[in-house]
């Protein structure tokens, strides 16, 4: 028993001594930089601009970052130009901080457009919704925009333009149609059954349709933009549903003499999707896009004739992401000289129209953020019409199913800092040490004395 007391006492003494003799434990100093990330997505089902002013319909956007700030918007119709043309109020949800939520349900109105846009454009019901929340430190943003129906009527302006003023336009068209006629003759042979294109009929019909007919009839879908954070990733996705664009609905005679009303061109569009993902563990980002597959339906009588001879179905052309002009139709539509990914129709004329279909790309910004963009259709019609009608300078710009997404960030880092002394080296012990030692001796002496007396 006595031995246990002595050994135990020595052990405690050793511990007490080490607190005086031992120096401070060496510890590596470190500094850490916290994780940072951001994500954003945006899209619109339709962007329509006439002479530089217009609206975007079915717009959505979503954004968040590692400071837990989240913002989402969904808009039915949004004014994009300088002129006050009307529209709907964006539905907006915004939060900041953990355990927060702001949800705005779907809100629909019929937008009131003002002159002169309301003479060119009619819009059906337009809706928007938005959600912003942070739960468990994971932010999320979702925005949705929708337009049910939209009509474009450029004819109200073009009807004031006399056809004779469009003579400068006819010359290149004349040459093009003449080329087609010769080609058809060569294929069909002398005495063939395919009739020649009638210059006056085709061009007059086209110009007449522009002056009298609703230019565009568009049915479009939703645009949804969302950014979602999980333990591993930050994912930004924008999806724009497609629709049907009917261009220049006109009366077309059939072979049997009956007449049907069909659009000269119908563009049937799927949906476009742009996505970007940030890996929180590794700090790497990647982007991807899925452009729409577009079906182009051309309903001019000439297309039937050409199709009979060449065996190519001109009435329906499926356009893959790498848009390629149909060879025989190259005279009318060919890759633009300054933008090979776009098709130019009536290039070099006031009626020049450019079409980019099912295109997309990924990109990396100088700050390291990675993004993707996808477009179903981008049509710039009557691009140079301003030379004939000043009020329409800029033509008609139509973007359908546009989606874009962006992410970026940096994983948390722990850096070893060099040891930096906070004071000049300590080169003196405490002057209290001898006092403490003597006090300890005295206490030990009196303790033993009390023990002896208690036996």
């Amino acid at each position, binding site marked *: 028993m006595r031995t246990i007391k002595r050994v135990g*006492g020595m052990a405690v003494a050793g511990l007490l001594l080490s607190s005086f003799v031992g120096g401070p434990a060496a510890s590596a100093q470190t500094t850490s930089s916290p994780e940072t990330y951001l994500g954003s997505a945006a899209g619109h089902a339709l962007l329509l601009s006439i002479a530089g002013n217009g609206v975007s319909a079915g717009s959505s956007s979503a954004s968040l970052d590692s400071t837990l700030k989240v913002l989402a918007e969904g808009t039915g119709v949004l004014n994009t130009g300088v002129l006050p043309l009307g529209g709907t109020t964006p539905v907006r949800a915004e939060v900041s901080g953990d355990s927060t939520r702001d949800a705005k349900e779907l809100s629909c109105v019929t937008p009131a457009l003002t002159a002169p846009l309301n003479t060119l454009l009619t819009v059906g019901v337009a809706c928007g919704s938005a959600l912003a929340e942070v739960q468990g430190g994971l932010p999320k943003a979702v925005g949705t925009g929708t337009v049910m129906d939209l009509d474009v009527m450029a004819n109200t302006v073009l009807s004031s333009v006399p056809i004779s003023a469009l003579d400068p336009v006819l010359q290149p068209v004349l040459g093009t149609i003449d080329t087609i006629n010769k080609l058809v003759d060569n294929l069909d042979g002398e005495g063939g059954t395919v009739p020649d294109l009638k210059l006056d009929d085709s061009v007059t019909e086209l110009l007449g349709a522009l002056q009298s007919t609703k230019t565009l009839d568009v049915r479009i879908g939703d645009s949804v933009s969302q950014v979602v954070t999980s333990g591993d990733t930050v994912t930004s996705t924008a999806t724009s549903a497609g629709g049907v664009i009917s261009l220049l609905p006109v009366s077309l005679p059939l072979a049997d003499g009956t007449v049907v009303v069909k659009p000269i061109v119908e563009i049937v569009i799927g949906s476009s999707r742009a996505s970007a993902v940030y890996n929180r563990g590794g700090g790497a980002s990647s982007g991807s896009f899925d452009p729409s597959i577009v079906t182009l339906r051309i309903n001019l009588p000439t297309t039937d004739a050409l199709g009979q001879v060449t065996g190519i179905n001109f009435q329906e052309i499926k356009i893959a992401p790498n848009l390629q002009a149909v060879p025989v139709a190259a005279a009318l539509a060919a890759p633009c000289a300054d933008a090979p990914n776009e098709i130019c129709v009536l290039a070099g004329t006031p009626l020049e129209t450019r079409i980019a279909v099912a295109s997309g790309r990924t990109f990396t910004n100088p700050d390291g953020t990675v993004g993707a963009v996808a477009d179903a259709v981008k049509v710039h019609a009557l691009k140079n019409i301003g030379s004939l009608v000043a009020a329409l300078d800029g033509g008609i710009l139509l973007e359908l199913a546009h989606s874009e997404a962006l992410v970026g960030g940096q994983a948390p880092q722990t850096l070893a800092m060099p040891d930096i002394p906070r004071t*000049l*080296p300590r080169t*003196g012990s405490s002057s209290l*040490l001898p006092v403490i030692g003597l006090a*300890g*001796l005295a206490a030990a002496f009196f303790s033993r004395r009390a*023990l002896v007396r208690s036996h």
Partner: protein
Amino acid sequence: MDPVIQFLRSNPWARRGLSFFSVALLVSALGVLGYPVYTNVVHDREQGQLDREIASDDVARAYRARQLKDGDPLTRIKIPRLGVNTVVVEGTSSKALRAGAGHYPNTPLPCEAGNVAIAGHRTTYGKPFADLDRLKEGDVIILETPIGSCTYEMERAPFIVEPTDFSVVTNDPAKSILTLTTCHPRGSAAKRLIVQATLSKGAGAAA
């Protein structure tokens, strides 16, 4: 009867506890009182080894190549007025300073241009800087390196600064001075005692 004694008689567990505690107190007190003696023993052992190493060719080679590591012998410091004669090591870590005195790593080497700074113990580990406060203007300090020696002369009396005042060891290439630092007052680390002297002989000895 003393109530404490009465309590101890009637509670065996209290007696055992007090017995255990008294042994611990005794050993701790002896340890605390013996700590300075212990550090001096360590210092003497270190200095004995450093005495041999500083004369070696390896150290001279490392000195010329500026490749001395923390704890390596650097120079001998002599203060004739105080009878100081000790080997200074490279570095001012707690381990390096067990040798008694250490050279600030980010300052020039002894006898070079600039502010050469050395820290030394005042109460333990041989206490080489115990009596720095007795120095005065005109006193000399000699540094003997493996490749040469030089002499510094004091042009001002020792002075006191805060422990966080690093300006005293900041380098100034336009001047050739030696700065010695130690704790102040004796037995306390509340302040720092500073001695500064200007190079008077042997300026190119360590080039």
